[in-house]
């Protein structure tokens, strides 16, 4: 092996590549207990004999025939690196398909080391693999690892420079006679490759009878609709209750009194030149008594970003991380598969969807793991139109707790209704895929904390500036008279179609920057309860925030072209805004509340 050639970690999704990467490189990237976490590659340095060697965590791939973008990225790596050392990571509890990929990689002549990961789980399930024999048969080094504990990682590191290539012909020669027939040597034939896999497995793996464990039983019960659906209700209730009480603890318990009673009055009086444009920009209304309504960069801007949205994001990401790591999200996906099929998606659309509840940006990015352009377009569009992000939910929860649940429900119903319609009219296919369910595991604290801190840091760096800038821009537009002008222009549509006052215009402008800010802005407008609900729904649907929009453009480029993807998304959201928003008004009129 040449010294500077890179090390590629390859294997199926969810076998522990990222966990091994973190151990080998001392890095910290997200490991999640569901397939498709790593859609971008991550590169780092590994110290090998005191020399830095590049190491790359490649997105999971099932085979070397790419089926989705993440897989193409993976295969692209393999082909573009010069003499890479490929660490094939195999889930020891599912050794067959892992070996199949190994054979494919060997067949192309790469130098390979095998990490038999999840060794702990294999042992618990009574799967015993003779690693030495496997190494002999394949002619490449094999190490048993438990990536989460770091077991075997040193062995793996020390064995990297013994990576080997091995032809399928030589492997077949070393096998017991059964498959010794010449037709097999062409390993490119999938069936022939599977024959070799079967023979290897037969000779190196012994299965002991074990009772299915309680967690296996629970795993089964959580995906059977009869028991799984009630349990899902309990989990979702728990998520919501946890989210609202933790976010409320920080926001209502501490930040509201801190900002309203101390910071706001202080800055209102201490900031010089009341009445100047600068005062208006940074402090806002000198007579405001609460931090939502003052609307200056340093008052509402700071308050919304730090006092409301940060706690909400923290609470939400914490439960999401727990759910991800326990393997429950993938089960939810299976459970909801039938519902998703109606809108042309499969259950795995739940992964981008769940991520979107944190923030739409990673949600849209995660659509990359979906198979066809149609599925990607559908998911991307529906997410950015109908799924409120955690920041937005946090502000809703703090301003209108009594309606937040209903608004969320109305948006989710919209997600499925528009999904079903789009599925009819968008051309393309939405193939069935076998969903891969990871086992239920106890979430690991270290991993949860690591993921949480990465995401919170990301939030602080990207979202906070947008919130502050959003307040600034709206205030500048006020000063320039643009807000008043827009309000007059849009007044007929706003009051005619949606039945909301023209004072919602600044909120709609703020919504271009951040949805959370837009909803905070709405609190300053005096409206009936129904108008409040209506305007929150409008703000949620009408346009994705800048960051999401940028992501839509980026992903749209590779999902059928920018014009088609983004144009389609915009058309959908205009239709959704008028139809779904108008319908809400009709419902309000029927109920006699509008």
């Amino acid at each position, binding site marked *: 092996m040449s010294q500077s050639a890179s090390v590629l970690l390859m294997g199926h999704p969810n076998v522990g590549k990222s966990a091994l990467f973190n151990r080998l490189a001392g890095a910290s990237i997200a490991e999640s207990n569901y397939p498709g976490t790593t859609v971008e590659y991550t590169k780092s340095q590994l110290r090998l004999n005191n020399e830095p060697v590049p190491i790359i965590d490649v997105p999971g791939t099932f085979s070397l025939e790419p089926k989705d973008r993440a897989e193409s990225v993976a295969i692209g790596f393999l082909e573009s690196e010069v003499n890479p050392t490929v660490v094939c990571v195999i889930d020891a509890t599912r050794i067959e398909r892992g070996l199949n990929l190994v054979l494919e990689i060997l067949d192309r002549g790469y130098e390979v080391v095998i990490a038999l990961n999840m060794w702990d789980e294999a042992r618990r399930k009574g799967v015993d693999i003779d690693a030495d024999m496997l190494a002999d048969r394949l002619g490449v080094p094999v190490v048993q690892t438990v990536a989460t504990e770091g077991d075997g990682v040193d062995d793996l590191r020390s064995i990297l420079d013994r990576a080997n290539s091995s032809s399928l012909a030589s492997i077949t020669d070393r096998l017991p006679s059964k498959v010794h027939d010449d037709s097999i040597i062409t390993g490119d034939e999938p069936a022939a490759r599977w024959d070799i896999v079967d023979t290897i497995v037969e000779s190196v793996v012994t299965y002991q009878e074990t009772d299915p464990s*309680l967690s296996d*039983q629970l795993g089964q019960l959580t995906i059977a609709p009869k028991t799984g659906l009630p*349990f899902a*209700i309990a989990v979702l*209730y*728990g998520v919501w209750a946890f989210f609202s009480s933790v976010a*409320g*603890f920080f926001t209502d318990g*501490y930040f509201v*009194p801190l900002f309203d009673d101390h910071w706001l009055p202080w800055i209102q009086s201490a900031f010089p030149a009341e009445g100047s444009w600068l005062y208006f920009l940074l402090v806002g209304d000198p007579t405001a008594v609460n931090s939502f309504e003052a609307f200056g960069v340093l008052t509402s801007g700071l308050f919304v970003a730090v006092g409301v949205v940060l706690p909400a994001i923290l609470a939400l990401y914490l439960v999401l991380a727990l759910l991800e790591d326990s393997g429950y999200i993938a089960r939810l996906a299976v459970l909801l598969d039938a519902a998703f099929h109606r809108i042309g998606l499969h259950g795995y659309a739940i992964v981008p969807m769940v991520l979107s509840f944190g923030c739409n940006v990673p949600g849209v990015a995660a659509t990359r793991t979906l198979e066809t352009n149609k599925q990607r377009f559908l998911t991307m569009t529906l997410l950015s139109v109908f799924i409120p992000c955690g920041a937005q939910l946090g502000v809703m929860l703090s301003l209108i707790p009594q309606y937040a649940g209903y608004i969320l429900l109305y948006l989710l119903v919209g997600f499925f209704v528009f999904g079903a319609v789009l599925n009819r009219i968008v051309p393309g296919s939405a193939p069935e895929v076998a969903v891969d369910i990871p086992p239920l595991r106890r979430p690991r604290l270290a991993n949860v904390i690591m993921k949480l801190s990465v995401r919170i840091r990301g939030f602080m760096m990207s979202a906070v500036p947008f919130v502050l800038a959003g307040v600034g821009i709206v205030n500048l537009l006020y000063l320039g008279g643009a807000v008043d002008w827009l309000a007059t222009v849009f007044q007929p549509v706003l009051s005619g179609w949606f039945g909301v006052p023209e004072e919602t215009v600044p909120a709609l402008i703020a919504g271009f920057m951040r949805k959370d800010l837009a909803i905070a802005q709405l609190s300053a407008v005096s409206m009936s309860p129904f108008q409040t609900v209506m305007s929150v729904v409008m703000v949620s649907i009408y346009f994705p925030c800048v960051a999401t929009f940028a992501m839509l453009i980026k992903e749209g480029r590779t999902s059928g072209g920018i014009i088609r993807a983004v144009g389609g998304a915009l058309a959908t959201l205009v239709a959704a805004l008028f139809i779904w928003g108008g319908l809400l008004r009709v419902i309000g009129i029927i109920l006699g509340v509008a």
Partner: protein
Amino acid sequence: MRVDEVYFGVLGVAVGLMGLLAVVRGLGLALPNPISTLGVLTISGTFLLWRGVILLSASAFYLQGVVEGLDRRNAQGTVFLGSLMLWIVAGTDLLARLLETIPGGSEQWLASSGEILAVLGPPFSPSVVAAPFALSALAYWSQENEQ
């Protein structure tokens, strides 16, 4: 009949009754809150209907486990899942109470320890009452680890 079958049978019926009451009250029917007669139990608050539905399902899981026979792993799993649901509701319920109290209202940043302890006392919601009894399902878990 095994001891655990009797135990979870009784618990299942009790949880079911509380769940039924929660659903009925959650739907807005004027059944009395048991707090008036049984000082420690209160069936009220937000999301009552949903919590009632969860209690009813947990009860159904218990009863199903008992009917199938708790010597079977699958039935033990069902009972465990029911307990898990109770713990989720009870846990978030206590957490919400605690987090609401800790900031201590206006003019103070931290409630006194007395105030904090008081909210952890009665009256309790049905899930909190049932949760400790549901803990015995953990036996199925530890049984397995001993093997």
